[in-house]
């Protein structure tokens, strides 16, 4: 299963509203063995988007960090965005554990 973020969200790949669209789509196809989230070479750079789309899969989607980490793939995510995503996501993991 492939989710093309630019196709889903258009030019807005930074807002929480767009993040929520992506999260809802991820949850709707959660039964797929693997989900590739692609960005078409675009830079995201948004804490809000990553938190809403991926970080809140735990709190709102009731999925575990391990499930999310193994199911979701980000094949074309830029290295600087991957680092930001990991930071935002791990902050949510810490909150859940606390």
């Amino acid at each position, binding site marked *: 299963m492939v989710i093309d973020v630019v196709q889903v969200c258009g*030019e*807005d*790949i*930074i*807002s*929480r*509203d*767009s993040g929520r669209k992506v999260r809802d789509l991820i949850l709707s196809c959660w039964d797929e063995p693997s989900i590739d989230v692609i960005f078409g070479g*675009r*830079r*995201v*750079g*948004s*804490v*809000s988007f990553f*938190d*809403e789309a991926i970080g*809140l899969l735990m*709190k*709102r989607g009731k999925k575990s*960090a391990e499930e*999310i*980490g193994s199911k*979701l*793939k*980000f094949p074309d*995510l830029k290295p*600087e965005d*991957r*680092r*930001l*995503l*990991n*930071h*935002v*996501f*791990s*902050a949510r*993991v*810490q909150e859940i554990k606390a």
Partner: protein
Amino acid sequence: MHSERIEFPRQPTIAYIDSFLKAVRRVLDLSEGEVVLDLSRICEVSSVLVCFLCGLVDLSQSKKNRISLVLPRNKSASKAILAVQKLVKGEDGGQIRIAERTWQARKITGNNSAVLEEILDLIGENLRISGEARDSLIVVLTELLTNAIDHSGEKSCYVCAGAWGRSRMLHFTLLDFGMGIPQKIRTRYPQYEDDVDALRDLLKKGLTTRVGLEGGRGYRYIQEILRRNKGRLHIFSGRAKVVLKYDKGEYNYRRARKAFTGTCVDIQFNLDAAGLDAYVAEDKKGDYF
């Protein structure tokens, strides 16, 4: 016909924000009149000046006011302001897009971060910006843009970025004429009657204005990045005036005598430092992806 002559200070920098906020109030109070933006005394140009000029021209036109510009007597300032004069003459075709060698101004009407990347790319043609500094700037500017577009209720904002003189500080101003941050906070937290308290808790506790939803993380990253960058963050909204000088360790929250309907955020970013790298490294908790 009623007329308003708005004189700008000799040094139109963020230190003189009160004169810009007063100018907005005067233009808002005038309809089908004449607005004269008198820049004759200014001897330098700043991102906050350009941002407010774009906003005042746009605001005047929306109030059906005739608008004119008195150019600066200072030659270099006058040359820089010529680009703004085109807006007054309506030569911009309704778009606000000014591309100068060391500064850029735009009116942004959506959550499109590509505009921010374009601004940094163009400024980077004449000013050395490291990859790490650029990454940090993108995160800061993206969060400021989504806040302005999502929370102001206006769905548009004015931005200007530039470096002046030999400074290695990039100045970035973002202005909207929406409801303002304190008012927006009160839609979820009515107990925040005081604008300064609302801004203080937004920055310190991460209040979110999204009813029933998550949020409030953007300003945490902005502050953490600017703290490590030794930059500055100014926020003026409603009656709150916040000035955080991370380079000097000075943090001030003040109350303005009159309210500003809108939000002006101004950052100063040290291009010889970054911020995001250090924050992520210090706070690293593990990789999942």
